[in-house]
């Protein structure tokens, strides 16, 4: 994969992975890199579990009526798929793994501002995950990941422990967010002004603000539904003076910004990788940096577009509709900027670049359909159909997952000091991108036909598109399996990657791969921006 192939690159003698190899040295570590690696293992396990549920759901839909599970089991499966993918994979996937690992290195710090709190966030995540798993084994909830009242407060399934698991998990998100904000404000190295920050840091900064401001609202609403379910408070029950629509307002006040918690870090990854792949400065650094903040801000005022037909006022629908159009603009700016970055660049087509292409495709089509569903009258037909399902899978699974995989393939050599098999990388990238399209394009058409979501049993006229979608999902499955196999092999047998296999100007590539315990042999002084390639044909370095 690297142009220095053939040259024998020495693997560093001391690095963070071999400074203490006992289990205890991992479990009690305060090293942000090790915490990042442990989060990586955790989110991959969550991805496997959530992905298994997704496959089970897809195969159930091969026939219109019962195929091999009952209606109740089906309803539990889609709830668990949503809960695990949203809270245990997508939200922590990039910030807690790559944010943890790279933010201190990118800003020239030895660690995050609060290393103990950072370790605590891992254990809070584990505890929340354990509780949710326990609830899952004891039946699981059948409410959908959205927990709409009054269904969620009256169903007999184990809703309360699951809500508590998510409530606890929320603290992990908040703690990580606070840690990053403080770290970025106070620990930047000499010469690293705000306008020299890597764009990944800007994206994580925007994400952290959303995490800190929005997650408490989620915690509140989960707690309220939990006590309502257990003790019958009646806050959301019209029979006792409550209002079920209030729940939806509170829930989406968090859950719409949560979409940006998932996609903003992926956008940051793309800004980094596209500059490295094209070996060119990002076309409009300020536009990308400020649009991250713009998304973080405007994203808070669009939640009502999830409720156009829920019974909110006509005026509200208009206000939320027009604000949703504005949030789309920030994404548009970024897309134009990334494409502009390629102009007159020197592009090398590698596995991360394949994922950049996938990301652009999914973000453009997912974003465009997003604007379409935000168009109020069109949403009336599409709301709660497979069109919406396909739209948010394009963004959350398509684009955000592409960001995650781009990050994994771009930074894998830095994190573990070894290279993976480039050929298999491209094969699995192709499989995954084709698989995503084959899975979700039929779902757009299903939505147009009027197929509602969360349907166990569906009218027979929808069957052929369901079969097509299921076929696509198996491609996706094989794509992921190949990734896990060649990355696991690379960990043991991969060639030493060297300090900077991509020839990137990003600051994280100035330290050895894998980095030493304290990140740098000597603390760096920042004399150039992270995406400046002019005049310096940075050639891949040996260690």
């Amino acid at each position, binding site marked *: 994969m690297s142009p220095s192939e053939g040259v024998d690159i020495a693997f560093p003698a001391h690095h963070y992975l071999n400074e203490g190899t006992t289990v205890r040295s991992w479990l009690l570590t305060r090293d942000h890199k090790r915490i990042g690696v442990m989060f990586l293992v955790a989110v991959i396990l969550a991805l496997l579990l959530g992905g298994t549920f997704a496959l089970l759901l897809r195969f159930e839909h091969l026939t219109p009526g*019962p195929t091999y599970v*009952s209606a*109740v089991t089906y*309803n539990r499966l889609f709830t668990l798929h949503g809960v695990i993918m949203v809270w245990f994979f997508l939200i922590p996937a990039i910030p807690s793994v790559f944010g943890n690992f790279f933010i201190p290195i990118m800003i020239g710090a030895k660690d995050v501002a609060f290393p103990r709190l950072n370790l605590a966030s891992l254990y809070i995540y584990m505890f929340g995950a354990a509780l949710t798993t326990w609830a899952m084994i004891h039946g699981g909830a059948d409410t959908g990941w959205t927990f*709409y009242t*009054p*269904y969620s407060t009256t169903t007999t399934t184990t809703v309360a422990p699951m809500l508590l698991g998510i409530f606890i998990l929320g603290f992990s998100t908040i703690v990580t967010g606070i840690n990053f904000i403080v770290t970025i404000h106070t620990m930047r190295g000499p010469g690293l002004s705000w306008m020299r920050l890597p764009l990944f840091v800007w994206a994580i900064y925007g994400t952290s603000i959303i995490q800190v401001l929005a997650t408490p609202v989620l915690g509140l609403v989960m707690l309220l539904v939990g006590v309502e379910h257990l003790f019958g408070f009646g806050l959301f029950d*019209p*029979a006792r003076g409550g209002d079920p*629509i209030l729940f939806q307002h509170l829930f989406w006040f968090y859950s719409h910004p949560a979409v940006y918690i998932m996609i903003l870090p992926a956008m940051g990854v793309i800004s980094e990788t596209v500059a490295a792949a*094209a*070996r*060119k*400065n990002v076309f*409009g650094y300020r536009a990308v940096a400020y649009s991250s903040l713009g998304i973080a801000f405007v994203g808070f005022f669009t939640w009502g577009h999830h409720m156009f037909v*829920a*019974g909110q006022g006509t005026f509200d*629908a*208009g206000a939320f*509709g*027009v604000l949703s*159009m504005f949030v*789309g*603009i920030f994404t*548009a700016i970024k*897309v134009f*900027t990334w*494409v502009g970055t*390629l*102009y*007159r*660049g*020197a*592009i*090398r*087509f590698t596995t991360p670049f394949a994922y950049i292409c996938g990301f*652009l*495709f999914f973000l453009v089509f997912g974003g*465009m359909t997003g*604007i*379409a569903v935000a*168009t*109020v*009258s*069109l949403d*009336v*037909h599409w709301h*709660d159909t497979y069109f919406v399902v396909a739209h948010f899978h394009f963004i959350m699974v398509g684009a955000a997952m592409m960001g995650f995989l781009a990050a994994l393939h771009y930074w894998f050599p830095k994190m573990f000091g070894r290279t993976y098999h480039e050929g298999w990388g491209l094969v699995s990238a192709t499989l995954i991108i084709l698989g995503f399209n084959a899975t979700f394009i039929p779902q757009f058409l299903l939505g*147009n*036909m009027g197929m*509602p*979501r969360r349907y*166990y049993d*569906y*009218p*027979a006229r929808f069957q052929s*598109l369901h079969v097509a979608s299921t076929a696509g999902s198996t491609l996706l499955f094989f794509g992921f399996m190949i990734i896990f196999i060649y990355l696991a092999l690379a960990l043991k047998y991969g060639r030493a990657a060297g300090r900077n296999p991509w020839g990137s100007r990003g600051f994280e590539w100035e330290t050895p791969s894998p980095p030493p315990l304290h990140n740098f042999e000597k603390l760096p002084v920042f004399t150039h921006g992270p995406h*400046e390639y002019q005049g310096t*044909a940075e*050639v891949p370095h040996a260690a």
Partner: protein
Amino acid sequence: MNELLRNVLFLPEQASTFARKVDSLHYFVIITTMIASTVVGLTALAFFVRFRRRSETQVTPLLNPPWWLEAMFVLVPLGFFLAWFARGYSDFVELKTPPKDSMDVYVQAKQWMWKFSYPDGPNAIGVLRVPANRPVRLMMTSRDVIHSFFVPSFRVKQDVVPGRYTETWFEAIEPGRYQILCAEYCGTNHSLMRGEVIVLRPEEFDSWLADQRRGRALQQDGAPTTDEDVASVADLVRQGEKIAVQQGCLKCHSVDGSPHIGPTWLDLYLRREQLEGGGTVVADEGYLTESMMDPRAKIVRGFNPVMPTFKGKLAGPEVAAIVEYVKSLRSVPVEQARSRRPVYEPIRRR
């Protein structure tokens, strides 16, 4: 053009005035987004090829966009987005504003059925009869959790919320039958909460409504008058069947062995049923009667305790008639029974 795009996009038939309006905006949005996405995609592809890396020491220029280009990045898409919004919102306001002369129908949703009531006329479960070319306003509420009234062919959807009335309206343009789906997840049988809109020609509708009113008046007098009614009294089985239809029993219980909300009645008599919470019961006359009066006493395993009590709603002879009807439902060869399973087949045109 309309038909072509409708088929390419897999949209259902346009059976209401609103559907045509929404679809024209849909086409406009899809065409502009597809053109824009393709232009962006092809530009990127051209750059991949034109600007591929030629040597490892290649130097690239420092480029930043001029202010006018950045302004265009913002203003061009924003112009389109706001145009869609303006058009979409004005249609939405129309959907939220029923015409003054619309006919009202009250809709009550519950797990897992739709009930339609006409202000001065009949009730119906699962079937909404409306006249073509006349605006119909639906005043909707739910008895339990949130449901959503969705008719894909009308492009109309509105959540039905407990504790409040929500409304929507439509004007059907073509007599025919159109499926109603529940679009808001509402529990185990959410996907079976379906119904049907039957659009009649206005004069057909008027005569149907008049018949219903007359029938209702007769029913209230309690005097069966037609020969058929008199004759049926002699036949308990047929009377039971009639009562079961009137009371809505068959909305949840099938009579052909197919799975539904409640246990099927086919071969039910003297069947040994596994109970929720352990134990078994033989479905004899006693159990059948108890299940009508106190439905939650013994729930058959795998079913939800959703049946309402019929205590006070059914007189003694009526219960007996239903029991006789259940007893009469013995299985014919299984294939035959299966072929009688009701399958939704929309009728396109009259």
